[in-house]
C-alpha cells in the first residue's frame, strides 16, 4: 500500500486514509460497524454474502464495501433505512434454510450468524416453508460437518487452499444445492482444522469436542502451543479442571498466528487430562523392583539423598542434568542453575539434538518473525519441511509467495510439497545439505559442492542471481539437517550478502516449542550431549536428573548402558521407555497447568498460562527443581512463582534483559529476545571443517523423488499424540469409515486398534 493519503467521507465525517485502502477496513477502523461474513482479510475476495453493503455517491445500486478500494473524494453512507433493509434481508435469506438449532449447536454462543441475528434484533420470521435438509456427518476424525448450517461464505475453502495449499475442501453442487465438501465425502488432508476455526457458524465443527461443552462454560486462557517451534498463540478452553478444547479464534486470542493452528496445536491436547497421567511420585527402592507410589516429601528427600551420595562418591561431574526443549524457560533455567550453581557439574544438556549454539554465536542478522516471512521478497529454505514440522512457517511461506509474490528457493533432498510454490527447486542428494551451505558461503567451493549435491553449479548461480535481484527482505531458513559448522556459516551469510536495498533475516527451524529457549537458558553450554551422556552412563556419569525422556532414537541401542546408572530421576507426564529405567519418577505438570514462557523460532518470548490446576499430584518442572534444591540446602528463593524465576532470567541472560511477565502480557505484540548480533567473524576454521566434510561426501547417493504424503510427520505418534485416539486413525492412513453418519472413532476398539466392521448406526 502506498503512503499517499486520500480523503474519504464516511457518514458525514472526513477521513484521511492511505491510497488503496479497502473501504470495509477503513470503515471498521474508524468505528463504523459493517457486518460481513465472507470477507476475511488476506484471503481472496469473495463478495458473496452481500452483508457489507453501503451506499457510495455516484454509484448505482448498493456496493459491497469489501470489494471497494477507496478513491479520493469518495462519499460513503454506511447507515440508512435502505442499507439496513438490505442487510436485514441478507440475514433473512441466510437464516431461511438455516436450522436455527442454536441450543444444540456447538457454536452456540460464539457463532457469528447468531451474534448478528441477536444484534439486529426483531428479525421477523417470514420463512415458513420446509427447510432444505442435509444430514450431519463426519468429514474426518477431526472434522464434523452440519451442512445445513452453512452460509457458504467459503472461508473454509479459501484457508484450505490459500493457507494450507491443500484445497481438500471445496464447494460442490450448484445454486441452493451448493454444499461444502470433498470428493467421496471424506477429508484427506493434514487435518489442521483451520476450516473449523474460520467457520462463522456451526457448520464445520471440532469432532473431538462434539457436544462436550458450551462455549460460555469454558474458562478461556491464552497460552502458547506446546508442539513446535512456531509458538502459535491459542486459547485453552477449560471447564472444571478439564481442558476441553483449543482454538485460536481471534475473539479470544490474537497472536502471531491469527486464527491459524495445525492439527497438533488444535487437536493434540487430550493428553493433558489423560487417565494415564502419572498420579503420584514413584520410587523404585531397589534395582529390578517396582515403581511404588510415594508422597512428594518422601520422593524429594529420597532423590536428594541419592544425588548427594553420587556426588559425594564420584564428584559433581558424575551427575548429569538433562533439560528439555519442551519445558519452559523457567524450568530449563532452574535446571541450569541446579547443575552449575548447586551441583557444579559440567555435564548438563537437553534432549534437543539440534544444537543452535554455533548459530547464535555467529548470528549476523536478526531473526525473521513470521510477519517478516509473510512480507519477504525472497525466501531461501535449506533442508527442513516446515509444512509438517513448523506449519505456521509453512503457511507464511505459501502466503508470501501466493499473496505477496515472493520468490521461494527450496534446497531439499525430497520434493516437499512447498516445491509447488517455489521459483526454484534445487533437488539435492540426501544428506548433502551442508554442501549447499558451503557453496553459498564460499563460491570457490561451488564446483565440488555441486558434484556432491548432484546438481549443476549453474543452479547455485541462479540462487545468487535471485538474491542479487532481491529488493527488500531475504529470509534464510534452515532445518535440522545442518551441522554446527554449517549453522555458523549460515549465521554469517548476512555479512557476505550485505548490500543496499537488501535486508537479510534468519530463521532456524528447530523442532520443539522451546528449542530456542532451552538454548537461551544456557542448557546447551555443558560438556556432553544427551547421547554422550547415555554412552557414558555407569562410567563417567553415575546419575542423571532429567526433565522429560530421551527420544526413541537417542535411546535405541543404549538401553543397557542406561540401566547401568546408579540413579536416574525423571520428571514426566507419562510412563515412557525412559521411565522404565528410572529410580524415581516425579509427576510433572503439562503446559496447560503451569505459568511460564517459551521462546519460539522468531525469538519471541511468549507466555504460557495456567488454564487448569495441576492434574493429579503433578507439579511444575521448575517447582520440582526448586524444591529439590531446597532439600539439598540451597534455597533458590522462589518457591512460589514462575514470575520470580523469570525475573532472575531477565537479570542473568542478556538477551532477556528487561523482560517481565507484564511486558509479555499482550500476545498480539510479542516481544523478541535481544540476541547479540555477532561481528563479522573469521570462519575459516568452520569452513575448512565444512570443506572436509563435503569433500568426504559420496557423490553416488540416489535422489529421492517421491513427494511425501501430507501428514507424514504430523501424524506420527509421539508420547503426547499417542494419547489422542484420533491420531491413531490418522497414523493408520485415515481410512474412510463405512458410514460417515457416526463418529469415526467407532472404528477404534478399546485397545485402539482399527476395527473394520463399523456400527451401521445412523445410516
Amino acid at each position, binding site marked *: 500500500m502506498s503512503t499517499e493519503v486520500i480523503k474519504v467521507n464516511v457518514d458525514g465525517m472526513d477521513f484521511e486514509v492511505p491510497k488503496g485502502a479497502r473501504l470495509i477496513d477503513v470503515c471498521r477502523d474508524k468505528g463504523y460497524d459493517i457486518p460481513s461474513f465472507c470477507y476475511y482479510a488476506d484471503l481472496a475476495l469473495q463478495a458473496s454474502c452481500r452483508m457489507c453493503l453501503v451506499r457510495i455517491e455516484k454509484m448505482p445500486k448498493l456496493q459491497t464495501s469489501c470489494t471497494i478500494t477507496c478513491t479520493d473524494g469518495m462519499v460513503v453512507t454506511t447507515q440508512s433505512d435502505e442499507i439496513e433493509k438490505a442487510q436485514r434481508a441478507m440475514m433473512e*435469506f441466510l437464516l431461511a434454510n438455516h436450522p436455527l438449532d442454536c441450543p444444540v449447536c456447538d457454536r452456540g454462543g460464539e457463532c457469528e450468524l447468531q451474534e448478528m441475528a441477536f444484534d439486529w434484533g426483531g428479525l421477523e420470521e417470514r420463512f415458513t416453508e420446509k427447510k432444505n435438509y442435509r444430514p450431519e456427518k463426519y468429514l474426518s476424525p477431526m472434522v464434523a460437518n452440519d451442512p445445513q448450517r452453512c452460509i*457458504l461464505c467459503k472461508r473454509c475453502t479459501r484457508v484450505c487452499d490459500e493457507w494450507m495449499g491443500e484445497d481438500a475442501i471445496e464447494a460442490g453442487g450448484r*445454486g*441452493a444445492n451448493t454444499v461444502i465438501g470433498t470428493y467421496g465425502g471424506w477429508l484427506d488432508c493434514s487435518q489442521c482444522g483451520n476450516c473449523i476455526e474460520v467457520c462463522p457458524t456451526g457448520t464445520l465443527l471440532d469432532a473431538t469436542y462434539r457436544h462436550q461443552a458450551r462455549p460460555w462454560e469454558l474458562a478461556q486462557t491464552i497460552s502458547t502451543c506446546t508442539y513446535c517451534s512456531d509458538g502459535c498463540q491459542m486459547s485453552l478452553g477449560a471447564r472444571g479442571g478439564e481442558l476441553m478444547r483449543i482454538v485460536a479464534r481471534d475473539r479470544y486470542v490474537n497472536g502471531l498466528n491469527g486464527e491459524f493452528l495445525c492439527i497438533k496445536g488444535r487437536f493434540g491436547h487430550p493428553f493433558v487430562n489423560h487417565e494415564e497421567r502419572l498420579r503420584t511420585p514413584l520410587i523404585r527402592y531397589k534395582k529390578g523392583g517396582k515403581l511404588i507410589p510415594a508422597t512428594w516429601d518422601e520422593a524429594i528427600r529420597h532423590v536428594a539423598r541419592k544425588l548427594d551420595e553420587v556426588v559425594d562418591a564420584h564428584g559433581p561431574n558424575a551427575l548429569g542434568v538433562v533439560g528439555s526443549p519442551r519445558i519452559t524457560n523457567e524450568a530449563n533455567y532452574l535446571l541450569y542453575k541446579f547443575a552449575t550453581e548447586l551441583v557444579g557439574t559440567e555435564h548438563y544438556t537437553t534432549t534437543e539434538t539440534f544444537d543452535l549454539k554455533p548459530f547464535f554465536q555467529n548470528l549476523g542478522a536478526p531473526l525473521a518473525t513470521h510477519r517478516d516471512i509473510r512480507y519477504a521478497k525472497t525466501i531461501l529454505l535449506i533442508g527442513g519441511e516446515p509444512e509438517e514440522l513448523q506449519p505456521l512457517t509453512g503457511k507464511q511461506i505459501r502466503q508470501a509467495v501466493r499473496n505477496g509474490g515472493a520468490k521461494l528457493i527450496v534446497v531439499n533432498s525430497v520434493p516437499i510439497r512447498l516445491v509447488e510454490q517455489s521459483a526454484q527447486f534445487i533437488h539435492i542428494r540426501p544428506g548433502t545439505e551442508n554442501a549447499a551451505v558451503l557453496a553459498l558461503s564460499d563460491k570457490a567451493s561451488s564446483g565440488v559442492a555441486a558434484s556432491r549435491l548432484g546438481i549443476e553449479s549453474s543452479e547455485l548461480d541462479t540462487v545468487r542471481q535471485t538474491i542479487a535481484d532481491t529488493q527488500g527482505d531475504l529470509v534464510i531458513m534452515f532445518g535440522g539437517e545442518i551441522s554446527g559448522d554449517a549453522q555458523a556459516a549460515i549465521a554469517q551469510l548476512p555479512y557476505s550478502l550485505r548490500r543496499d536495498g537488501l535486508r537479510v533475516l534468519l530463521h532456524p527451524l528447530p523442532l520443539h516449542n522451546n528449542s530456542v529457549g532451552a538454548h537461551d537458558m544456557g542448557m546447551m553450554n555443558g560438556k556432553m550431549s544427551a547421547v554422550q551422556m547415555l554412552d557414558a552412563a555407569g562410567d563417567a556419569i553415575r546419575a542423571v536428573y532429567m526433565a522429560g525422556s530421551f527420544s526413541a532414537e537417542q535411546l535405541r541401542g543404549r538401553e543397557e548402558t542406561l540401566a547401568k546408572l546408579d540413579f536416574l530421576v525423571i520428571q514426566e507426564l507419562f510412563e515412557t521407555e525412559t521411565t522404565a529405567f528410572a529410580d524415581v519418577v516425579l509427576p510433572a505438570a503439562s503446559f496447560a497447568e503451569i505459568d511460564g514462557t517459551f521462546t519460539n523460532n522468531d525469538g519471541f518470548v511468549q507466555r504460557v498460562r495456567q488454564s487448569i490446576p495441576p492434574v493429579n499430584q503433578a507439579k511444575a518442572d521448575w517447582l520440582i527443581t526448586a524444591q529439590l534444591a531446597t532439600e539439598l540446602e540451597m534455597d533458590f528463593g522462589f518457591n512460589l512463582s514462575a514470575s520470580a524465576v523469570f525475573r532472575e532470567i531477565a537479570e542473568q541472560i542478556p538477551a532477556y534483559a528487561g523482560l517481565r511477565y507484564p511486558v509479555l502480557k499482550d500476545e498480539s505484540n510479542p516481544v523478541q529476545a535481544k540476541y547479540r548480533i555477532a561481528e563479522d567473524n573469521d570462519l575459516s576454521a568452520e569452513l575448512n571443517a565444512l570443506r572436509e566434510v563435503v569433500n568426504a561426501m559420496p557423490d553416488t547417493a540416489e535422489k529421492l523423488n517421491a513427494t511425501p504424503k501430507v501428514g507424514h510427520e504430523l501424524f506420527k505418534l509421539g508420547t503426547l499424540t499417542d494419547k489422542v485416539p484420533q491420531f491413531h486413525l490418522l497414523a493408520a492412513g485415515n481410512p474412510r469409515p463405512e458410514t460417515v453418519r457416526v463418529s469415526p472413532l467407532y472404528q477404534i476398539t478399546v485397545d485402539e486398534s482399527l476395527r473394520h466392521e463399523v456400527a451401521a448406526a445412523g445410516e
Partner: protein
Amino acid sequence: MFIGAIGCEPLQLARVHLEHSHSLEVYQQHGGYASLRKVLTSMSPDDVISEVKKSALRGRGGAGFPTGMKWSFVPKDSPKPKYVVCNADESEPGTFKDRYLMERDPHLLIEGMLIAAYALGAKTNYIYTRGEYRYLIDIMDRALEEARAAGLLGAKILGTEFSSEVYTHTGAGAYICGEETALLSSLEGLRGHPRMKPPFPAVSGLYASPTVVNNVETLTAVPDIIRMGGEAYQRLGTEKSGGTKLWSVSGHVNRPGVYELPMGYDDMEKFIMEDCGGMLGGKQLKAVIPGGSSVYIMRADQIIGKDVRMDYEGLVAGGSSVGSGGFIVMNETVDIFESTKNLTEFYKHESCGWCTPCREGTDWLVKVFKRIANGGGRPEDVQLMLDLCDNIEGKSFCPLGDAASWPIQSAIKRFPEDFRKHLMVNGQN
C-alpha cells in the same frame, strides 16, 4: 419454422436458405471472407474499431453494450496475449437465434471473429458453446477445418502477416456461463461462477489477459458492417441502435421462427399479428415476453394499438426491453402465475449459488410458488414475493439475481388477477 428477414434485406440471414449454406464454398460464392480480406489488406485495427463504432452496433447478448466501445477498452500496450471469446452459450429461455446462425452460416461467425481478432490483436480465440449444442460444435469444427485448409485461419491468414486461431469450447449445462465473467471462469476449467467487475474482461479476462466477449449475433454482424461501412449499417436501424436484429419467436403464434428485423421496426402488434402469422388457433393474445425470460412481461394492452417500436429505446418505452430478443408469445390460456412459476424454477435451477440473495431468494420464491400452486396460498404471499424480489434485485453479485426478480415483479404488477386467483381460499381473498 420460419427463418428470414422482414422489413429489410436479410443481412445475417442472407445465406441461411442456400443449399450447403454451411460450406466454405457456398459462403465464398456469396461474398464470404471479402470483409476479412478488406480488413487485412486495407484497414488498420483502429479503422475497424472506428467502423464498428459508427455502426452503432450494440451487443446482442442481452446487455446491449455498444460493441465498438467495448473493443476500444482493450489496452493496446498490454504485453499479455489478447483473446476474443464468442459467447455461444445461448441459454436464455426463448432464445435460439445463435443456434441457427451457427448451424446455417458457421463461416460468417468465423469471419466476424477474425475481424474482431484483427482489430484487437488476438492470436487465440474461443467459441464457448453451450454443451447441449454438441452438433453445432461439430459444424463449427468442420467449418474451422475448412477455413484452416483454405488459409483463412491460423498462420498468415490470406498471406498477410496476421495469424490467429479460433477454437471451439464446450460448456456443460449452466445458464450462468452465458454471463461473460462466469463464461471465462468456465473456460478456465473452474466452476462457472461470475467474477468481480472491475476488472472488466477487456482489461483482465481470460487467463487474466485482455479479453473481449461478444455474442454470436454481435460478431456475425461485423462482416456486413465492414462490407457496407459502419454508417450504412447504422442507417438500417435507428441512431442509437444500428442495423438489424434477430428475434427468436416462440409460443402461441402460427409462424414461430428467427426473424431479422431492422432496428426500430414498428410495430410489435403488426409483427405478431401479421409477420408471425397471427395467434395460434385464433386465440386472444394475453402476454408477450419480448426479450428472453429476463425482461419485463408485457400485457396485450401494452402492445395492441400502442405502436411499440422494436429497438432498445422503443421497448423500454413500451415497458420492457430487448434483452436477447427471445420473443415469447402467450395466449389467453396461459396462467401468468404458472408461467412465472416456471421461469422462477428456471432461475432457481440456474442460480450459481455464489451469492446469498440469488441462491436463497430464488429457492425461497420457488417454495412460495409451489405452496401457492398446491393450494396453500395466503393473501400476504404477493407482498412477500415482491419484497423478496426487491431484496434480491440490485443486491446480487451478478445480474442473474435481477433477471430472476424482474419477471416476477412485472408479472405481479401486470397480471395481479392471475396471482390473486391462486390466493383465494373458498372464493375469498
